């Protein structure tokens, strides 16, 4: 029986990676991810985990090193945040297109400037197009459970893609919460030993990462697109299998009290947990509101999302990142993409909140709800808005 103990989420995530028996970890310190790899280095040094721990000199080197170890056929794990992820950017595409099943946890944090160590989603959202699978954990338990799930997804022979496990920096990473820890034996029943499909091997030489001339580049991209899109089926299967084995079932799109709701909030990350408490509170006042959250972000679960918002009247979409001068926040952009041309598509109230560590609290949800309610009552859809900004800033697009 799994043990439930009070533990900092970062340490639990590190323990989970160790329980997955990873072979190689290459990382560079960056707040708020640091505790994960620090704890892994302890586990390696204490002999608990038989792995190579490589303290490299930058994140660019960390991801490069991970590509090397994964190409050699090792189960590879790393973690980063914010500027670190941005520095990895060049190698992110390479890891994905070389189909190297690396698992990386990202404690989401704002990007500079101004320098800010606190939480938002600007780091992960700027890596949307790099071709990794991307999944979100809302709390310590989910993020811990998702570590073996991510390894299983990444290494599945129908998938073979790197996967990024996101959770909110500090809000999740530094919180001590009761977490049911799976033992190495339990995880072994779910996650088999890693057998690489192909690897660098002197006896059976292959070339990884050669030049793709215009004659083949498009086809390589098409193959990659198919790989990411087709990963959806195996991901659902693996999430289901984890649920059946350990009793906690995760879904690509999750809903909370949406059955009778006309207004539904759409978001991802830890704020959705705060929102659940807020929904409970305002439902007592008779407000029919629910939540739809993306757990899986790449591949985008288009059909599951459409189903989740079927028949809803107004969506309040909360983004923790946006594209200045562009089409607003990424979640809103992609939600609109899934609903464009749909009959009776719900109207979308788009807000950006929780930037650089500003808390998304009940007042924020109240404000968003008011805007949604006005739209439900026949009012005009307001433009995209940085809802927590002082001075009544109203970004019009």
């Amino acid at each position, binding site marked *: 029986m799994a043990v439930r103990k009070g533990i900092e989420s970062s340490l639990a995530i590190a323990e989970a990676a160790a329980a997955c028996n990873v072979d190689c970890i290459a990382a560079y310190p960056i707040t708020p991810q640091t505790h994960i790899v620090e704890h892994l280095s302890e586990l390696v*040094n204490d002999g608990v985990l038989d792995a190579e721990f490589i303290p490299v*000199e*930058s994140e660019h080197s960390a991801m490069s090193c991970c590509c090397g170890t994964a190409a050699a056929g090792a189960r590879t794990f790393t973690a980063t945040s914010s*500027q670190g992820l941005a520095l990895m950017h060049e190698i992110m595409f390479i890891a994905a297109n070389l189909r190297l099943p690396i698992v990386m946890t990202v404690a989401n944090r704002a990007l500079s400037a101004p320098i800010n160590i606190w939480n938002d989603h600007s780091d992960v959202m700027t890596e949307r197009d790099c071709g990794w699978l991307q999944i979100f954990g809302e709390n310590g338990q989910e993020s811990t459970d998702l570590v073996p799930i991510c390894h299983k997804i990444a290494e599945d022979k129908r998938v073979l893609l790197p996967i990024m496990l996101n959770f909110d920096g500090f809000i999740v990473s530094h919180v001590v919460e009761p977490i049911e820890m799976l033992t190495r034996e339990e995880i072994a029943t779910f996650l088999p030993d890693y057998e690489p499909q192909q690897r660098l091997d002197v006896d059976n030489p292959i070339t990884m990462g050669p030049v793709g001339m215009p004659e083949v580049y498009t086809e390589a991209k098409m193959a990659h697109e198919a790989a990411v899109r087709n990963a959806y089926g195996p991901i659902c299967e693996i999430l289901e299998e984890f649920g059946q084995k350990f009793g906690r079932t995760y879904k690509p799109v999750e809903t909370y009290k949406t059955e009778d709701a006309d207004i539904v909030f759409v978001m991802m990350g830890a704020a959705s947990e705060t929102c659940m408490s807020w929904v409970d509170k305002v439902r007592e006042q008779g407000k029919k509101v629910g939540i739809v959250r993306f757990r899986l972000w790449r591949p985008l679960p288009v059909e599951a999302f459409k189903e989740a918002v079927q028949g809803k009247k107004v969506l309040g979409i909360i983004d923790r990142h946006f594209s200045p001068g562009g089409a607003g926040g990424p979640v809103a952009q992609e939600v609109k993409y899934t609903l464009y041309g749909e009959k009776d598509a719900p109207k979308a109230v788009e807000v950006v909140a929780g930037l650089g560590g500003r808390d998304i609290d009940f007042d924020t949800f109240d404000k968003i709800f008011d805007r949604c309610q006005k739209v439900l009552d026949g009012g005009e859809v307001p433009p995209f808005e940085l809802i927590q900004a002082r001075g009544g800033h109203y970004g019009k697009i």
Partner: protein
Amino acid sequence: MTEIKSHPVDGLLRTDRMPHIWCPGCGVGTSVNCFTRAIEKLEMDLDKLHVVSGIGCTGRVAGYINVDSFHTTHGRALAFATGLSLSRPDSKVVVYSGDGDIAAIGGNHLIHAARRNVDMTVICVNNYTYGMTGGQVTPTTPDKALASTTPFGNFEHTFNIPNLVAASGGTYVARWTVFHVRQLTRAMVSALKHPGFSFIEVLSPCPTLYMRRNKLGAAVNLMEYFKESAVIENGADTRTVALNEGKTVLGEFVNVRLPTLRESYEERMKEALGEKFVPYEGSK
């Protein structure tokens, strides 16, 4: 009425940002004190002095010095400073950052800025660890020393930074500690006056992470160690100045005048283009 006395170097600091973030016993502040004294001594035009920092504990210096300052990304301070130095040839550009920033993640920029002899002064505070993120191993962590990522002791080879910079082409290279405040101030004066790439390694205690983890006592114990182990060898061959147990070689190791990047560039262009070449006067 209580009279509020001001500190002699208050004018050079952004006192509205105090208290600073450095821990009690940290040497970064001491080095900043030396730096302000060097600026005063040189009577520098503060409108023509720029301080550039990267990320980390020492990276906060740019935010506390009351001159034009630039707090850049991790490791890239020298790259930013190279651009600044070339576009403002009438100004003095100082990079003030830590060992992790300059010698680890920014190591590539360090060797190339030194090789090109870019006109800038680099003050590298070496506290043997990444302080800001919790004391991980760096390329400057001594042999066998404990760090949060080397719980059984460091097994990697350690950088001898003065040798790295000298071998790369740095034309002024010195090392002092935050115990040697007079010598450090004098070295900063020399470095700021030096045309070309000048580099000072400043050894400094990190009592919160490095010293505590390695059971080295309080900051004062390391200051005593700096005092007792110091061997001043001006002009020493930098190959011999690696930090060893019980011996800390200090001094001005390299001080030669060679053409700076700008001077070499102008000379080459004059040769190649003759009268057609118009030297760049700097951005206005």
